[in-house]
């Protein structure tokens, strides 16, 4: 039986780990390579790096981080943030990333998704969707959640599947950093609309939120950052808890 995945995410800026509260107010907290190794030894099913480096001159720091991590961690490594072109994807894969997540670039130019999934295979193309509820429906935001697009998130999710995305990483902008739990309705709406796996993200504050993301949100995998990063829970605790709730996990 296929197990539900728990994916710790590390936000990386200028080669260092940070975790944002609502994407601002960042704290510095460690070396990403070391942190990733702790996670993989602790039973992470996959590791995710989100590069939030803003300045162009520091953009290459992520390649170094990915290269070092891939030599120490032998579980899948997903890298996102600032991925704009086929060349960016190629470079990350050559550094040892197993999957690349594309956010803003996919919204601006769907060809990036079509071409990259053809060139590298759907298995390594994850489309990251940042969505916010506008009272009626969910709308896509780009540029780390700063720019509204007017695009409907549910339609967009389906479109990305058709373009060749292998997975969708869905983040609720309303919940991200709040620790109030995933936006379950958003997750379940997208998950039931597409036939590719959905990774739920944004808002995890406790282990019940992970359970809800899978049971109610119908996500194949759950991503979380701060609950693991600040040591509130270990991956082992999380897995045992999910197991006790009848969710299949790799223990």
């Amino acid at each position, binding site marked *: 039986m296929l197990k539900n995945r728990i994916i710790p995410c590390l936000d990386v800026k200028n080669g260092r780990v940070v975790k944002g509260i609502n994407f601002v107010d960042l704290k510095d907290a460690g070396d990403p390579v070391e942190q990733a190794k702790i996670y993989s030894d602790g039973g992470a099913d996959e590791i995710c790096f989100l590069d939030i480096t803003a300045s162009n001159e520091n953009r290459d720091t992520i390649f170094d981080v990915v290269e070092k991590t891939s030599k120490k961690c032998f579980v899948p490594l997903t890298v996102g943030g600032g991925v704009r072109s086929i060349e960016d994807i190629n470079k990350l894969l050559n550094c040892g990333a197993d999957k690349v997540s594309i956010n803003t670039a996919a919204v601006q130019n769907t060809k990036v998704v079509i071409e990259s999934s053809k060139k*590298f295979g759907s*298995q390594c193309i994850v489309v990251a969707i940042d969505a916010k509820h506008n009272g009626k429906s969910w709308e896509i935001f780009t540029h780390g959640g700063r720019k509204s697009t007017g695009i409907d998130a549910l339609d967009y999710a389906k479109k990305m599947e058709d373009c060749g995305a292998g997975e969708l990483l869905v983040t609720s902008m309303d919940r991200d950093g709040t620790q109030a739990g995933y936006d379950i309705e958003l997750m379940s709406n997208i998950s039931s609309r597409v036939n590719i796996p959905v990774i739920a993200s944004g808002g995890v504050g406790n282990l019940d939120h992970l359970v809800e993301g899978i049971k109610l949100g119908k996500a194949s*995998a759950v991503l979380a950052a701060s609950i693991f990063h600040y040591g509130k829970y270990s991956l082992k605790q999380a897995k045992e808890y999910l197991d006790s709730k009848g969710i299949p996990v790799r223990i």
Partner: protein
Amino acid sequence: MNVTIVDYKSGNICSVINSFKEVAKNKVKIEVTSDLKKIKSSDKVVLPGQGSFKSCIDALNTINGLVESLNDFAINNKKPLLGICVGLQMLADVGYEETQTKGLGWIPGKVTKIDNQNGKYKLPHIGWNEIKIIKDSKIFKDIKDKSHMYFVHSYEFVPKDKNVISAITNYSSNHVCAVEIENIFGTQFHPEKSDKIGLKIIDNFINL
């Protein structure tokens, strides 16, 4: 001893290289090449594969003499070869991803899309799944039945002769996830991404 990972410019083989180097330490030489002479003189060959069946076969065929060299290595000289993911699938007679494509034909059978019961199961089959070992395989030495391995694929290998199957996994239905026939090995899952237990399989292959 040296092990060659065939680099035929298709897909991302970085993780395969990293994992083999990690296991080999400095005791075994890991070559990454499509050089026919080097393949011929190596002790073992790893055939990785990512992307579609067709794109991988096309990439293999682009390199003059590569298919013949692999044939020589595994079929005529009976030296150990491990196919991973599409690297396993290509051992079949034929694949149906994108379009009907002729495979290497080393293990009779076909590669078809996983029947996901009209959308009941999501594809690709991504993540950790248990394997059921159904035949003693040299690469499963010290690997417990029901170990978790990392999968990512939408197509499955359906061999004609069920005796070649060394492990199966269940997703929508049972499908083949490892084969062994004499000196030829294949895994549908990714040992290079399957944590310590995956590295053990690589270690077993290196130490054959």
